[in-house]
């Protein structure tokens, strides 16, 4: 028993070390960083964070990222809900083929889509807006959301629907007032995964924007390459990107295992 907890603890320490190191760096001055190895900040400073919160090209990038992540999550869920319902309740012409075609998009390397997406979104005039990134990410998130939601919906007995119709509910009223609250856990899990993918993806987000909608992930690579060794700033920006993720995990912690338990991720 004890041996197992030692292994588990060791693994979690391994997970936390790089995060600690990132936080450690973010509180150091540039001089200290370049001065040599130190396991904790000797001259504790908030300078890097101050820069990020005062420079619009930094905090603007955060706002851009959050904007497209939220747009993407909302669109993906809203669109996926009725589709998942259709897949879980009905058989219709080409349903299986459609389902597998949707899922096959999850297997497409984003790198394949970079160039055509740039062309496509430039053509429709959305290039360099949060909408371009949000819509591009739906290609991967909608199939995922449909898959997760379909799993949760299949767990709800069909009798629920039938009872509601007998009680005189129309389809939209039933769907919104009865069905959605029943599968709220599933919506939470699906939203979590949409949020997650959209938040962590960089390749498309970077290439579909240039100046006005530049996301934080792109702003960071720029710092890394152009301004040389501003490691403190880079670390601080990195730390700040962990926060939304941590908050989201905290809220869905009880559903994570459940979502995974369906074997649908």
């Amino acid at each position, binding site marked *: 028993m004890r041996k*197992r*907890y030692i292994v*588990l603890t060791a*693994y979690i320490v391994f*997970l936390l*070390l790089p*995060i600690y*190191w*990132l936080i450690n*760096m973010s509180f150091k001055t540039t001089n200290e960083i370049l001065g*040599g190895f*130190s*396991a904790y900040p000797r001259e504790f400073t908030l300078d890097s964070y101050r820069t990020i919160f005062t420079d619009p090209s930094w905090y603007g990038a955060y706002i851009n990222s959050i904007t497209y992540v939220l747009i993407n999550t909302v669109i993906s869920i809203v*669109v996926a809900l009725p*589709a998942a319902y*259709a897949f879980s309740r*009905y*058989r*219709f*012409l080409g*349903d299986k083929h*459609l389902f597998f*075609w*949707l899922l096959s*998009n*999850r*297997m497409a*390397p984003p*790198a*394949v889509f*970079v*160039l055509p997406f740039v062309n*496509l979104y430039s053509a429709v005039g959305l290039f360099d807006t949060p909408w371009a990134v949000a*819509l591009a990410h739906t*290609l991967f998130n*909608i199939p995922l959301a*449909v898959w997760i939601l379909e799993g949760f919906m299949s767990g709800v007995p069909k009798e629920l629907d039938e009872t509601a119709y007998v009680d005189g509910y129309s389809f939209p009223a039933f769907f919104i007032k009865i069905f959605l609250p029943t599968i709220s856990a599933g919506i939470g899990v699906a939203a979590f995964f949409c949020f*997650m993918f959209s938040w*962590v*993806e*960089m*390749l498309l987000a970077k*290439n579909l924007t240039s100046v006005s909608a530049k996301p*934080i*992930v792109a702003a*960071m*690579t720029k710092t*890394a390459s152009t301004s040389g060794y501003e*490691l403190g700033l*880079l670390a601080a920006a990195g730390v700040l990107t*962990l926060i939304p*993720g941590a908050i989201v*995990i905290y809220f869905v*912690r009880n559903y*994570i*295992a459940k979502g*995974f*338990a369906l*074997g649908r*991720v």
Partner: protein
Amino acid sequence: MNKVVNNRAWWLVLPVFAMVLFNALLPLMTVVNYSLQETFGNNEFFWSGAIWFEQLLHDDQFHASLLRQIIFTSIVLVIQIPLGLAIALCMPRSGPWVSVCLVLLALPLLVPWNVVGSMWNIMALPDIGLLGKAINSLGIPYNYTRQPISAWFTVVLMDVWHWTSLVVLLCYAGLVAIPDAYYQAAKVDGAKPWAVFRYIQLPKLKHVLTIAILLRFMDSFMIYTEVIVLTGGGPGSTTKFLSIDLVQKALGGFDLGPAAAFSIVYFLIILLVSWLFYTLMMRDEAK
């Protein structure tokens, strides 16, 4: 569940269908289109047949990155699947610590991919990074920007850090779903821990393991951001994987044809391997 045949359900699927069509079909058509044509700029295109595909098949650079990709994906799978399974077996089955462990384990999954790269960049710097300093002080020369072996080691370690949690979470969910009676029966039957693992846990985890392997195969085969931030594909092109190669070709050159052909071959490899693997794993179940 018995499903009702109802073609009006198409109306419910229509929004998804339209969006994915817009996002997937148009770009894919563009790619196919480019892959069969040749351009000299000015929006003039000429039919070129399968020439780009033929060229790709004889392209040493493509062969090299494909080989690197296969080696990388294999190493990653060989490490992450057993490790993830082992960690999941170490997890407590109930109690207040479960949530804490789950949250900590899920943390790497929510770090933006470029931040993962930056994080390991900082971590692995030979002089001021925790990892780099530690290895060098053991007397092992380590510099991931110069030595291919160090670079590979760092990239693999980073991917293990980043993605093993996904395998852990999947396996853990599978383990929790095994009814207590199985463990009790095994106790009563006098089964040793190894037999419990071999005859109860492993068979019950088959489904989630299939999914874990599939997801890890796909995602590691598409790896781009973390590596580009950490090593930029270097030193030289020793960590240049397929996606990095493709993006360089697509965004760097004027010739869209070769990149488009590359894209198609790349996508087809992933589809084919995933399909083969899934069918093989699920064949037993159908019986």
